[in-house]
Each structure stands twice: as structure tokens, then as C-alpha cells.
């Protein structure tokens, strides 16, 4: 049995391409699953972007650089990293006790959302427009195939895929072909690229801030 926490620890030092049975998706996506689920996961090259909310200072330069890099303009909608949504009131929106919850209007902790390069979008896309970049491990969208149906956006566990109305195409994090712009411009190093073998600790830290503050 491979535990949710153990899976990545046990993967350290394992070569790219190793095939696992278990819950890597559930761990990376935060989706519920049990450890006996039959998914077959292939650990790919690359890794993912993770934010440490302790360090995030809510400037949104990551959103900006992402948007510039991919679409040429500036917009939180176009950006693949999502700061604006959680910025003021935390991941669960406005609560009656907003003063004690996360967010700029709460305890000051900002919890941006990033793509975890899981398989959900690739699996739900009816156009088979989303595939894995073998060099970076990023799930990338083929805009020629994408019809903007929004299935991927709807099912994305992190809600970091958007359909851009102006072109009716879905957009998501592609790790900037291995050189993520968001991390380059972050003024505190809060958002970083983590190879899979280092991702567990980073995600564990991040996950501390995804729930409601009790």
C-alpha cells in the first residue's frame, strides 16, 4: 500500500517514466480518492508550480508575467496562475468571520492557485486537445483542437483553467516550456517550480492554507 504522503517520498530518486498504481493524482490534485484506487499514474518529467502562502505578498506579478507571456496583454483571466480570486477573502470566499479567514481582508495570508499538472483535464477533454509535453511534463492545450467547450475548466480541481471568450479557447499553465515566467518575477520567491521529487513538501505547506480557519 502506498500512502498519499508516502507516494512522493518513495518516488525520490526514481527515474522518469516509472509507472505507479495509487493516488498520485489524488495527492497532487487534492481530489478525494482511496489508496486502493486502480489509477495508473506515470510520473513524467518536470514538475509543477507551488506557492508558499507565507511568502506571498499579493503583488500579482506572477499573474502579470504569465498573462504577458502567453497572451501579450494583461489580465487575471488570461493568467494561468490565479491570485485575484483568493486574494481578499481566501480560498473559500467571503465567510461570516472573514476577519479570521485567509486573505487580504482576513489574516493577511494570500493563497494563490496553481496548476498541478494532473491528468483530469486530459481525461475529460472530448476533443483530446490536452496532452503531456514530454520535455516539461506540462499538460498543454492544442488550440487547433480546442473548441472552448469548457469541460476541462469545469472539472479542473484547482479551477485554474479558463475559457477565454475572445478566442473561445481554454488556457492553462504550460510551465512556459520549462522556464516559468511567474517564478522569474516573484519578488519574494513565493512561487517556485518544484520537480516532482520535491513537490510533496511544497504542497504540504500549501495545503495548510486551503481550508477554512477554525
Amino acid at each position, binding site marked *: 500500500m502506498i500512502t498519499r504522503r508516502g507516494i512522493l517520498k518513495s518516488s525520490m530518486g526514481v527515474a522518469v517514466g516509472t509507472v505507479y498504481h495509487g493516488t498520485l493524482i489524488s495527492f497532487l490534485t487534492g481530489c478525494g480518492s482511496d489508496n486502493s484506487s486502480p489509477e495508473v499514474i506515470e510520473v513524467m518529467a518536470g514538475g509543477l508550480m507551488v506557492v508558499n502562502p507565507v511568502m506571498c505578498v499579493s503583488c500579482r506579478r506572477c499573474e502579470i508575467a504569465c*498573462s504577458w507571456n502567453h497572451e501579450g496583454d494583461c489580465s487575471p483571466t488570461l493568467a494561468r496562475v490565479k491570485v485575484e480570486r483568493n486574494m*481578499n477573502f481566501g480560498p473559500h470566499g467571503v465567510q461570516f468571520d472573514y476577519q479570521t479567514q485567509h486573505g487580504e481582508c482576513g*489574516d493577511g495570508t494570500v493563497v494563490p492557485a496553481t496548476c498541478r499538472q494532473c491528468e483530469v483535464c486530459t481525461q475529460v477533454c472530448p476533443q483530446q486537445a490536452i496532452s503531456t509535453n514530454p520535455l516539461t511534463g506540462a499538460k498543454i492545450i492544442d488550440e487547433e483542437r480546442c473548441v472552448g467547450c469548457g469541460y476541462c475548466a469545469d472539472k479542473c480541481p484547482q479551477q485554474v483553467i479558463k475559457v477565454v471568450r475572445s478566442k473561445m479557447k481554454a488556457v492553462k499553465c504550460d510551465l512556459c516550456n520549462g522556464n516559468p515566467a511567474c517564478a522569474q518575477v516573484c519578488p519574494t520567491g513565493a512561487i517556485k517550480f518544484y520537480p516532482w521529487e520535491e513537490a510533496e513538501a511544497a504542497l504540504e505547506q500549501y495545503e495548510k492554507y486551503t481550508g477554512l480557519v477554525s
Partner: protein
Amino acid sequence: MSNKIGGWAGKVLRVNLTTSSIVYEPIEQYYDYIGGMGIGYKILWDDHKDDIKATDAENIIVFSAGPLSGSGVICTGRTTITSRSPVIEKHLIADGHFGGHFSPAMKFAGFDAIAIEGKASRPVWLKIVDDKVTIEPADTLWGKGIFDTHAMIAQMMGPNAQVAAIGQAGENQVPLSVIMTQGGHSAGGHGSVMGSKNCKGIGIIGTGAVKIAASNEKMRALDDHILGIIGANNNGVVPSTPQSWAEYSAPISRWKSRPGLKWGAADQEIDLGEVPWNERNRIGFRTSMAESYIGVEYANKWMKRTGGCHSCPIRCFCELKVPELKSKYNRKSEHISNVCMGFLVPQYLMGTKNGTEAHAMAGVLGAQILDDYGIWCNYGLISHIFKFLKTNDMFKHLLPEDEYNSIPWALWDNQDPAFLIDFYRRIAFKEGEISHMADGLYDLIERWGLDGTNPALGYWDIHKESKTKVFNKKTNAAVHHASETAGQVGTLINVVFNRDAQCHSHINIVNSGLPHDMTAAIAERKWGEGAFDKVNWYTPINAAKVRFAKWSLVKNVLHDSLTLCNWMFPLLASPDKNRNYEGDSTIESQMFSLVTGIETSETELDFKAERVLHLHRALTILQMNESNMREEHDVLSDWVYDMDPDKNFGQEGTIKMDRADMQTSLDMFYEAFGWDIQTGAPTRATLDKFSLGFVADRLAARGLLPG
């Protein structure tokens, strides 16, 4: 350059709350005024009505952004709010500013500005979701503090709504009131204008984009160029303490990070350590300024992180966690986000000393109360005047006996910050005579006879008292980087606007922290020999100082029009030894050219900004119905000349100015701007030069044009 025009969103939203009319204007007609402040002044010029009050329905309030806001260019999260001000005699035009994320959201929704006029018949708020604009009932919001209002509007719209709102002070039309957006960003002086319109606030969700003409590569190259030049807040370019990487250091610099300075309230305590200038992924730690406000002990205990505005890597805000706010003072939150005057104003009022617990607590408690009620400080004047009157036992002559006895003076005497809870409540709800401290200062002076006419006060004259910091005798505006900042340079900057000068162009070089000789050399290369005097050791006026003052004002107006942070820009100095610590004053034009696609030089852009400044001057004259600015507007308080009686102007160790020298300074200053030397009013030739002939025509028709 591509063919598309970027930057501007495309529309100005015009809302009339009396008629519920909602219309759009194309932005193109405002291109010559850049944006932001320029849009505000142009709208108020076009719709000018004589003799109206700021709180009359006919008055217009404009929330505006420039072409850079929302583009993601560094430090462009500013919003300019323009309207007549209830704080100034004759309710002259003034602008307030806040940062945060409001104007980027406005741009993403498709609007460069929102202009509100009229008065709703019942409390309302303005809801904007992209191009869907509706006037919503605000009955449930009315009476709420600003923090709850932000949350309630976001609950109705969605958590990503950016909200600008007033608190109880604005609702009650307290003249000294603010409009605030999330994160502690407030703009002073116009809260009551919104209150008078029964408008509680504006909520915006924008899902669109700000178009950018240049490529990502060019935008990133400019971003990288700026990161190599920009310093800490107010462009301090050296650390405040000696550090291994730095050739120089200076305590005045706001580059505070150093070993031993911590974000002690962060869930993982962070010791900031040295933050060398070229570590681009650590810039956000550089300006951890909490110790300046609450002392290093409490900074290390309460600082959670830095904060600030959209697209800014400098992060001048302090996000603090102070458990005592809840446990001891029964506040709803133990968190407070603010900067500078937010913390300092209640400390000035209490007269506490930095390094003490009372001082630290006064800062954080006062900031939280001020922000929730939405009270403005008039750049500290309310605190300085309160402290003087209290210290000199004058309140017993000014307040009814019952009221005087009801005020918990013992708390103030014991430096207990709980005094602020009582005091600010009286202000926000207009309780009693003392609440008039939040009137416009002209009104307060007249009401209490603070101009040497009240025998009970020993004929005390506020304009002769340096401690109360009233700098302009006619507008009663506060000292704001005035004669203490580069002598005549700061002084001239402080005579032009109708409220305190919010100009930091000069302080951003004066306080860079570089050795004086290096700063003076930069100033000399820019404006000529003698532009920058030694600190507190001034020489008579010269042409270089006048050029310095004019340049600073033009850049200030440029920034408030672009809209770019004037608390950081311009960047005349840099932390880069390889550049010989020189900055780059062309950055703004580079930003403008890349974002809009309209190739524009520094000189061309400054020319547009100067046009906006002339428009401001003309509008002031029109509103005053008076063209003699020299005698009726640009007049300094007596203490500016008469302080330090044992010293003469020009001696080492004093900032006192000289009356004759100041009149000469005004001569040269007016000439530099193309204003009539006798009156300081813009001439037709100058207005024509800046394509403001229609302004000259209107002034001429009113007999307000010189010559």
C-alpha cells in the same frame, strides 16, 4: 511597435445618481490629458459650476486610472480620485489617491474612469461586472464600517470584487473622511462627497484585459531594467544599515531589511537578513518598514509580511498581526494592513514615543479604527492640532463644560491608546463640539478663532505655530515634504495644490540615502549648479532650484495621470554601482511607449503632464473666481519665516525661509511655468502653447486672464 493602441480601456463611465442615468464616453477625447488626474481635471473643468459645495448633488467625483494601470508595468496600481474638496475654503478641486487593486479591476472591466454626479434618493452602491453597470440598493450597507462593507459587497458580487467604499464618517458627511479599497488603501478628503450622494461604494469585477502594444520580450526587458534601478520605498537606494554588499548606507533610507529584522508573526518566522540590490526574487523583503512606525521590538513581534499594490514589487505596506487588538480592545480583527500616516497619525495625536508599547499600540489600534470609520487625517493636521490644544489646555475654552467633562482625558494623559476609541467615535458620528476638528481647517479656524482672534486662547494664531504644521496660510494645507525638503524646492512644490502636496518626486532623490555630494551631483547634472542645498543649510533661490521644483511637480502630475506610484517614481538614483548610482528618468516614457504603442519621448510626455498642471491652476482660479494667486493662494504661514528666531535664513541648522527670497522664488517659478509674474495665473500664450485656448477663452470671459 504594433499597430494596436494599448493601455487605455476605452471608455469613461458617467453615472448620474439623481436620474439613474448610466452612459459611456469614449476615452479618445482625454488622450491629450494622459489619464487619471488629467481625466478628472478635464471633466471638472468641462462641467464646472460656480459656487457649488463639494457635497452638493451637482458636484462630480471622478475615479480614474491612466493608460499604465492594469498593464502590469511596475508600480501602476494607483487610482486618482478627483472632486471638489469639502476640506478647503470655497471647496476647491483636490485629488486623493489610493493604491491596491481597484483601478486595474476598473480597467479589466473596460473603464478608464468612473464619474459620479447627482444624489440618490436612498443609499445605493454601484455594481460593475464588466460592461454591466447597475445601481444597487445599499440599505443593508448603510451604517456599516468599511471592512464589513468590503466583505458584504464582495459577498454579493463574488470574492474577486474590488471595492471602494466609505465608512460611517463619509456617510455622516464628516469633511475629513476617506474612500478606501481592500488592504488598507485609502484616499483622503472625498468620503463625504460619496456620502452626500448616498453612495456607499463601488464594486468591480473585470474579466477583460488591458491591451499592450509591445511584445512580451520588450515588456520583460523593461521590467528587468527597472528592477536594476528601483530602490526601496521613496527610492531609497542604499540599505539603512551597513551591509556586506553595499558601499553606502543611511538610516534615512527605507531599505530596512537586515539581519535580525523579522516577519515575526509569519507562520514560519522569517529573518530578513541582507537583501542585496540585485537579488530580484527578494525585492519584496527590502522595504519592511514596520520598525519605523512601531519600533523594532514590536515590528519583529507583529509583522506578518509586506503588502501593497497591484504590480509593485516594493511592498511598502505592513501587514501586522496584533492579538491585543481583539483580546484587549475588543476589535473584530487582530490584523491591520497600513503604511506611514495610517500608523503615525494616531501616534501623533497621542504624543507617544517610538519604542514604547503605548506608541506601537496607538499606531495599530488607531489605524484600524480610522480605516473602519473611514476618517481622514488631513495629512496629520487633525493630530497635530489636537495635541497642541490638549497640551496647552485649550479644549476647556473650546468645548461645552458637559462635553469637556465627558471626554476621558485621563486616558490621554496616561498614554492609553483606548483614548482613540472614544475620540474617533466622536469624530465619525459628529458627536459634540470636538467633532468639528474633522471640519475643513478653514471652517475650524473660523469656528474656534484659531487665527489669533480668540482671547480665551490668548490670541493664539495657528499660522504662527510651527508645531501644528499648517504650511499654506490660504488653503490651510499641511506641510508635506515642504521647506524641510530641499528648502525652496519643497516650498514651491507646496504652494501649487489646494490640499497638502502629495508630491514625492523630490523626496525620492533627496532621501535616496546616497552621500550628499553624490545626490547634489545628480541634481546638478539634471537641473544645474546649486539645485540641491545641504540639509538644513539653505542658500538663496537660484534657477536650478526652480527647475528642480518645476520638474518635480510635472513628474508628480505625470504619475497621477499615468497612473504610476509617485511614492517610488521618478528614479533618478539607483543602487547599481556600475551605473555610478544613476537612475533613469526616461522610464515613464518607455513604459508609456511600450504599453500604448505611441512612441513618446520623456519631453513629449512631460509636456502632456504640464498641460494637466496648467489645467489644474486654471480650474483653481475659476473656482476661486480670483486670478491673483500670489496673494490669495500661494501664501505661506508666518512660522515658515519666523521659526528659529535666533537664526537667520541661510544659517546652518534651520529650515526657516525668507520672505523676500520667497517672493523672488515665486517670480522665477511663475516665469518657468509661463504664468503671469504679477499674479501667478497662466497667460493666454502659455495656455495656447498647451492647446488650452478654450481655457484661456473662459478665463478671459470672466476677467480672470492676466493682461
